[in-house]
């Protein structure tokens, strides 16, 4: 039997953080298939990573962290809490495959573009258009911005938009400057985040002066999308990530 375990951050204060994880798990169970069990676990909610494997009956387990980039959580917290030795662990009669985070995975640009298509459906956007990928960014972890640049580059190669730029909350180039200075009549801002939260709902719209999905000012139309991580097609990405981990261990 095969189990997929999706690891989310979770929150002590609101249900927004874990909701997309539950929804992706439900979609994989219902529509995508391929696993006998699909189980969620969290850092800050229950079941904890410490105990989730006890609830899994399958002997072959795939762990996919619902995180955008490689870093503190995927490299330290998750392996420590789940008791993993690396990408392959044999423990308590189970073979455990640990897949990497989602952001650098080759399917990620498609999810971003689906999110963008959903946002722009039925909206007029004549003239030049820039896509701006918004990352959290932090000075402590270079991978966090690297994965945003990587996706921008992959989307740029597809020649869909006149410009593809990146902007961050916590590091340069800072998002409000990017949106202001980008030379395009339409600017599409997509947060490359896993879940809705305080940043996507409050600080970002407030700091950037957004009026909702569409803000028109200084001859520019700015379109603000929901986070990539809440898009239904993330479920497919998560399942594919697990399958890739399986293929890698067979190779």
């Amino acid at each position, binding site marked *: 039997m095969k189990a997929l375990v999706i690891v989310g951050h979770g*929150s*002590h*204060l*609101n*249900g927004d953080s874990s909701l997309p994880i*539950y929804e992706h798990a*439900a979609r994989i169970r219902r529509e995508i298939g391929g696993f006998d069990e699909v*189980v969620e676990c969290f*850092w*800050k*909610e*229950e*079941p*904890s990573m*410490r*105990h*989730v494997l*006890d*609830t*899994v*009956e399958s*002997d072959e387990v795939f762990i996919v962290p619902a995180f955008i980039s490689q870093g*503190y959580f995927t490299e*330290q*917290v998750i392996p*420590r809490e789940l*008791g993993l030795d690396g990408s392959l662990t044999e*423990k*308590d*009669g189970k073979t455990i495959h640990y897949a990497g985070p989602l952001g650098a995975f080759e399917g990620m640009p498609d999810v971003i573009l689906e999110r963008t298509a959903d946002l722009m459906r039925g909206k007029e956007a004549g003239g030049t258009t820039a896509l701006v990928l918004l990352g959290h960014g932090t000075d402590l972890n270079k991978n966090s911005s690297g994965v945003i640049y990587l996706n921008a580059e992959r989307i740029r190669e597809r020649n869909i938009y006149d410009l593809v730029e990146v902007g961050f909350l916590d590091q340069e180039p800072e998002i409000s400057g990017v949106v202001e200075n980008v030379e395009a009549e339409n600017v599409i801002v997509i947060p490359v985040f896993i879940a809705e939260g305080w940043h996507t709902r409050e600080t970002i719209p407030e700091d950037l002066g957004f009026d909702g999905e569409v803000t028109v000012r200084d001859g520019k139309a700015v379109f603000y999308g929901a986070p990539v991580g809440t898009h239904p097609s993330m479920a497919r990405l998560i399942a594919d990530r697990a399958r890739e981990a399986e293929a890698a261990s067979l190779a």
Partner: protein
Amino acid sequence: MRERTGNVAAEAREAFAAWISESDDGRVFGEVRIEKDGSGYSIRHIEDEGGENLDVSTDPTDAREISRFTESGEYRPLKSSPNLRRRWELRLSGEAALVSAMNYFYPAGAVHWHLDREGELETTSFRENASRQSGMYERAKHLSDEAAQNAAKACCEDDVCLKKTLWDIDDDTPLEAERGDGEIPCPEPCSVFVSFARRVRSFEKEEIYADSDGLTPSEKEDIAALVDGAASGGVSFAREAEFEEPVNERRMRYRRLTLAPKLRPEGESG
């Protein structure tokens, strides 16, 4: 950790289902009652024994939605908190559905219950758990034994968490808190507890700033918040795990243990 043999999750499913089937009027687990219902199972809130006007569902994953928010719509970060909402019933077709629903109501509860009954549940002490912490939770490591005992009394007793607390402070220091009478074991401090312990550590650290009456800055802030709230017609509580806010139930329970005695010294009670 000890290596496990056999399929613990599958054994737990069978044992849990058998335990339900053995009893005529069902079993209480946390705040739910589970009964055998023909070839399947029925789960209800313990307060909904009468069974009238319940929203009936046959999908075990509905347990997740039911257990997400309290009756008044507050998010539930701790599933063993005694605030599960009422007026629903799950009619489930078999063991797998039963355990799947139970894992949403009380995550890992059934497997811990089973391991505990078999004498195989490993517990992790507060010190062991804290020494593993990194990042923002690292601070919990430095908590004194006394503060850790009080934190557990404030955070883990049955009034605020229905799990039976099995862990100790360390191998030589048993927990002083009432461990609880429920069926669901708690083998290790949970993340809500660790987050609370981190806040309690900051209370401990500010003791050097206590005034001549022994009151610390955050204690005075809490008293002022209570006075302000009550004076404007109602004290509104902070969210369940929002320990940074003065009027949080667990934070107030901690104050009852550590601040109330300072305000009401021995012999002046009443």
